[in-house]
């Protein structure tokens, strides 16, 4: 929550200072968006991207079940 005191102080700034504040905040917001992945941190990936053999076994089982039912 932005305090009324801070808002009042910002309002007192001259035009150039106000533009500098806008630029500063816009840069910080952009940095936060692009720095979501921190260097050195570990981010687990729960996706079986190379489970090709498992996929084959599963599809064979599904086909066998379909054949049995028909």
């Amino acid at each position, binding site marked *: 929550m932005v305090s009324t005191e801070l808002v009042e102080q910002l309002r007192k700034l001259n035009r150039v200072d106000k533009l500098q504040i806008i630029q500063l905040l816009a840069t910080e917001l952009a940095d936060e968006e692009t720095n*979501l992945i921190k260097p050195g941190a570990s981010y687990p*990936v729960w*996706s*079986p*991207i190379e*489970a090709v053999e*498992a996929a084959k076994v*599963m599809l064979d089982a*599904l086909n066998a079940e379909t054949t049995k039912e028909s």
Partner: protein
Amino acid sequence: MNSRARYSFTPTDTSLGEASFKPYLPLTLHYRNNSQEVIGLLDTGAMVNVLPYQVGIELGAVWEEQTTMLQLTGNMAQFEARLLIVSALLGQFSSVRLVFAWTQATQVPLILGQANFFMEFDVCFYRSQKLFEVTPKQSL
């Protein structure tokens, strides 16, 4: 009957803004006489569908009865996985059979992957609009 169902991407963490939107798809799974409403993550990079352990239990599946072992990859390689075939109902579409790697991992999302979700449904992503559309596969 409308042959296309449209869904919105779901924000999962407001502090992450645009980066947190994910394509979660609601569907109902049926196994024997049980059914469970679930939310699946559409993962085009995943080779297989993955069912978290707890969801399988809630569907009434018995781990020991599933005898086909599967070897998953990545972070899931450390957990035992077994094959489980269930029926799935999505929107107004006809029921389809989905084959899952039922993993003992509990912290994973329910993943809808290439085998065989994306073999049953065509999905079109409109990420810039935070929308995606699902259509049953076309019979050739």
